[in-house]
């Protein structure tokens, strides 16, 4: 609950808007495992780090300003980073840029990185340089150069073991920027993207899983609780009335119960998404799910109400001429209330699963982050095939973590309100 409140109030709304915008996550390492895998594999998955390089004006000829920036860092990890990006804050006037890296063994890599700022991913421009370096180290040209191979060329040792062993020591990075307007106060940030991130890793676009999980929590809880409250409320009153009234009225009420019970939830909701092409809001989705799930509770409430109806004091009320609606509220409703509470709590996990299943199928209110949608993109990007287990494991485990307490509390209440079932 605390996490939900935190996510609701402390995560800026801009982050929710940015979630589906891949450009906003370029600085994050894509599909890397959580940081703690390092404790199991001998620190082969370095975390990300960034270097802030202050720009200094070196020459100015006419309209062209040339800036340089440089820094050095120690690299001591056993594994390779997953990428390297250059980020400049106000970048509209930049004409082109150059990146130069000097490795601890003195090998120098220089490449033109263009002007597609604010964030430049350096693997594509480095491809041919990396290919040459791999030839220099191993004696053969690689058939294709992946971004892992680029990183191996930049951070690997000289020799055939370059893909397995990193070259530790001081690295020197410098950036030259040509701009046709002064870049006052701007600075260059070099992001060395690690091959591990945070508590739960990142997905294909570099989005941190832990952040997504946190952002999905409030809407999931809200939807599940609302759905459960509404459907149990409607179901218990409806079923209570049906059981209490009996006869013809009961038959009609039961008929409608069966009508709704026969609607298959998933295909129905998916089709509704097509009937309302502008998308369902949270309230729409809540009402639709509640509309489909109340009959299950109505059946239970009806059975309970039938047993109440034949109690002596209810029959006494009837003989005394007490209006039916009054004995319904004085005798039936209080006896159904404990059931209602238990089933509201027990209904929440079911609602969570249904909501996430729908989100997995692409039915969820727009503008929200949901775990089902995260798992959907995991499926679409073949996370299982690629072994990105953290992307599958954590969003799903959250569903369990959110559901399980409600089930336990529900079972506990259920035992108290129906002592006949809970024995010993």
């Amino acid at each position, binding site marked *: 609950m605390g996490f939900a409140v935190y996510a609701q109030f402390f995560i800026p709304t801009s982050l929710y808007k940015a979630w589906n915008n891949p450009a906003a996550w370029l600085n994050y390492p894509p599909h890397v495992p959580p940081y703690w895998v390092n404790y199991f594999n001998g620190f082969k998955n370095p975390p990300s780090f960034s270097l802030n390089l202050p720009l200094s004006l070196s020459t100015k000829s006419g309209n062209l300003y040339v800036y340089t920036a440089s820094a050095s860092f120690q690299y001591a990890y056993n594994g390779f980073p997953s990428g390297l990006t250059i980020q400049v804050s106000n970048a509209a006037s930049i004409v082109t840029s150059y990146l130069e890296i000097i490795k601890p063994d003195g090998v120098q890599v220089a490449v033109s990185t263009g002007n597609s700022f604010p964030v430049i991913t350096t693997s594509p421009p480095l491809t041919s340089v990396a290919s040459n370096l791999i030839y220099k180290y191993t004696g053969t040209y690689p058939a294709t150069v992946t971004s892992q191979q680029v990183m191996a060329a930049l951070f690997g040792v000289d020799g055939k073991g370059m893909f397995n062993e990193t070259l530790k020591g001081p690295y020197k990075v410098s950036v030259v920027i040509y701009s046709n307007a002064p870049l006052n106060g701007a600075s260059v940030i070099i992001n060395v993207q690690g091959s591990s991130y945070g508590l739960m890793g990142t997905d294909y676009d570099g989005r941190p899983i832990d952040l997504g999980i946190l952002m999905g929590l409030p809407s999931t809880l809200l939807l599940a609780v609302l759905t459960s409250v509404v459907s149990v409320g409607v179901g218990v009153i409806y079923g209570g009335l049906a059981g209490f009234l009996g006869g013809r009225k009961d038959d009609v009420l039961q008929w409608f119960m069966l*009508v709704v019970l026969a609607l*298959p939830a998933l295909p129905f909701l998916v*089709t509704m998404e097509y009937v309302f092409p502008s998308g369902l809001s949270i309230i729409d989705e809540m009402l639709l799910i509640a509309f489909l799930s109340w009959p299950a509770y109505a059946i239970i409430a009806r059975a309970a109400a039938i047993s109440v109806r034949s109690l002596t004091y209810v029959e006494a009320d009837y003989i005394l001429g007490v209006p039916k609606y009054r004995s319904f509220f004085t005798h039936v409703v209080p006896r159904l209330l404990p059931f209602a509470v238990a089933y509201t709590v027990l209904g929440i996990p079911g609602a969570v699963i249904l909501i996430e299943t729908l989100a997995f199928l692409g039915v969820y209110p727009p503008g929200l982050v949901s775990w089902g949608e995260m798992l959907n993109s995991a499926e679409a990007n073949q996370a299982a095939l690629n072994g990105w287990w953290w992307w599958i494991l954590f969003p799903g485990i959250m*569903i369990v973590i959110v559901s*399980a307490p409600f089930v336990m509390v529900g079972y506990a209440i259920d035992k108290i309100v129906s002592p006949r079932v809970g*024995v010993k």
Partner: protein
Amino acid sequence: MGYLSFAIKKVVSYFLALFGTMAILFVGTYPIYTTVIVNSANFVAAQALRALEQRSHTPLTPEQIQQIHDQIVNQIIASYGLNKPFEVQFFYFLKNLLTFNLGYGYTNAPITSNTGSYAVADIIASYLPNTILLFTTGTIIVIILGLVIGLLAARYAGSVWDRLVPVVAVVHSSFPTWWIGFLLIAALAYGVHLFPPGGIVSVPPPKNPVLYALDVLYHMALPLIAIIIVGVGGFAYVVRSLVLSTLSEDFVIALRARAIPERIVLFKHVMRASSPSIVTQVLLALTTSITGSLTTEVVFQWPGMGLLTWNAIIENDVPVMLGVLYVTTLVLLAGLLLGELIYGVLDPRIRVGED
């Protein structure tokens, strides 16, 4: 009231329910239902015109083309009753549905039946058996395992194993089946290559029928494991509760007083007494499993109704989606009716009516 009149009463009430359910579906899907029909009418008219143009020697005038087009479109629209008042259209809808005249899927979408037909009824006929195969097998295994575990837990009530059942029930029933499937694929299919990651048969499928059946079983193993993991705990818990409540009844005490062996008390008398409630649970589980686990099929690429729905969403094939919705509703109602009828056989009290 005899069993026959009970059965007739139930069948009639389910037909009335079918009527109501279809009314809701009709009103709910009316906008897309009409669009689909008009679209397919336009498509048929365009095809007919093209064929006509190839055969005729003189090119048709624009007026002629318009006239023929309108004629064909109006004919099709009339056959669905769309030119009639709203409430009459419903009866056309119902008639088409009950005769499985579900229209045609979009021909630009790659969804066809085994034989390559675009008729929605044919498509569903080739996908539905796979769903039934997977989920009936899964549910039967869940029932057997759940019965055994639940009965044992009830017999040794209070032991460590008995205390474990609710915990397992809680944790396992909070798993979405498709997510478990996902993990199983990652671990057992791609991790250790023990099972195939998806599909129903190998490509190419084996020729020998025995090998073919074995191949299907091999592909069914992972989805079955997922269904069992999620289902068994909750079902065992329900069985345990029902059996325990029967165990505290007077006739059990009487049986025990007569020194009848505990085994016979449990498996003969208690089982018989609690079987109606258990059967209700079983049938509810079966019917909901058919619609509820659709997503599991998507994860395992199992060519059943779930995967069909998923493909229809991806390909935007609205006619197929509507067809799936209507047919699953029919299957669900049929399942519920069957449940009531079996319940009537097992528990004679129900036939008298609750009043």
